[in-house]
């Protein structure tokens, strides 16, 4: 891939990922967040985090489909870090606008409310991944260990989706779409591996 194309695509990815944040800032400044601004901020940052996390998980299976797609790897870290960025905004929204910075409230919530417990767990799982996302950290850890550590992203994504299901009312099926997509992406890995193994044996 040409350097110029890469720069262009990276710029577009940055803009797309920052879009939701820019919109929220604009709406907050102009007081156009809608009737329930707190919930608008909480829901849109949470959704963006989960969506970006799932998009970042699509990179590997897509690359396996064809060697011509191998350049996609250059976008995975960017997507993953933006997922962490939105997850952090989501957490801060909870801390500031829902718990009102009250430690007791947060303790009770984390101990008693499983959807909050699950959300905090998902964020905590993402934290070491974001911290070890630099080239220096990859070198320091060594590719193998780094890879093993970053397998945690699957657990984090599953926790995030469970957090979503536990947050909506029983009977509401809005998390279904993201759940199905995540399911397909997670299943795609063993399925693709099996196909490739068969091809290798036949050859």
């Amino acid at each position, binding site marked *: 891939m040409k350097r110029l194309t890469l720069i262009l695509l990276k710029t577009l990815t940055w803009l797309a990922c920052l879009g939701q944040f820019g919109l929220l800032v604009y709406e907050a400044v102009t*007081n156009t967040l809608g*009737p329930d601004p707190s919930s608008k901020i909480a829901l849109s940052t949470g959704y963006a985090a989960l969506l970006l996390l799932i998009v970042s998980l699509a990179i590997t299976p897509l690359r396996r489909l064809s060697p011509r797609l191998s350049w996609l790897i250059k976008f995975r870290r960017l997507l993953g870090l933006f997922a962490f960025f939105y997850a952090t905004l989501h957490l801060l929204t909870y801390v500031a*606008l829902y718990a009102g910075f009250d430690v007791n409230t947060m303790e009770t919530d984390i101990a008693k409310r499983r959807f909050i417990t699950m959300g905090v767990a998902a964020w905590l799982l993402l934290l070491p991944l974001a911290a070890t996302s630099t080239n220096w950290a990859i070198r320091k850890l060594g590719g193998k260990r780094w890879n093993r550590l970053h397998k945690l992203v699957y657990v984090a994504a599953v926790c995030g989706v469970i957090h979503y299901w536990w947050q909506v009312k029983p009977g509401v099926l809005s998390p279904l779409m993201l759940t199905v997509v995540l399911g397909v992406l997670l299943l795609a890995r063993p399925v693709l591996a099996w196909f490739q193994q068969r091809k290798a044996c036949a050859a």
Partner: protein
Amino acid sequence: MLIGKPPDIPSSAITSKDRYLNRRRFLRGAVSGVVATGVAALGAERLAEVFSPRIGAMAGTKLETVKSPLTTTGEQLTSYDDITHYNNFYEFGVNKDEPAKNAGGLPIRPWTIRVDGKVKAPKTFDIDTLLKLRPLEDRVYRHRCVEAWSMVIPWVGYSLSEFIKLCDPLPSAKYVQFLSYYDKHVEKWSLDQAISWPYSEGLRMDEAMHPLALLTFGLYGEVLPNQDGAPVRIVVPWKYGFKSAKSIVGVRFLDKVPPTTWNDQAPSEYGFYSNVNPNVDHPRWSQKTERRIGLPFYAQRRTTLMFNGYADQVASLYTGMDLKRNY
């Protein structure tokens, strides 16, 4: 000489009584016809809006109202725009902005309420009869949703007890159930959820007979927009919002607790009573505070009041009851 004198106006030129009584509708039709022709160029969607406006044709019609001593004072009203564009009406979609877009097809005329169960005789009431039954009162109430957001809404209606008296319930009637309109063709969004329809809610008889329980026809002095539960709904201001069933077509008197939608869906989250109570948490969030709709994000949080601030009037309904168990 009167005999044989021809009338001044030939009968063929007299406007029929029916037409005369409907002259406004005729005018509106004629005007919208002209307007429709005018805007046809603007596209089919705009045209469709003229012929079947998304917000029911009656919404916005002024109602004649009187003052009420039961109105809540000292609160800033939530804007009309927020009250009509932030709705939980799952038959028209789960997102708050969906009912305003989707409820246009609710057929608000003709409309009747069927009354049956433990009554002297089953009856059917027409909406236009109900509108004239008692003077319509302006009643500002706080509205607290179980999801921990709140509004202040100027409803229009009269006490539900006035209507219940006309239903002639038998002494064996201990509970009353409200059934909402349901048609999966009109409310196709309802099929996106694993919820059994129609929406059902209920009250104990003494709760339903409390003067604060309101049979509601309007808000801000006008006919209810469809997304707010047109043409007639229940409002029970000391309970979480979902107890206040919308677009009522059936009222059933029973000797036992009626099945109610959210209680059936998740009994640990939504009790039959569902009185606003800051001391009993929802399993998924605290009910100690609430977010007031329409304020900036940094100013929304406020303390939730026992019985939503109506404790002086309604607490006596629950004396001796364990409100932690009967949430």
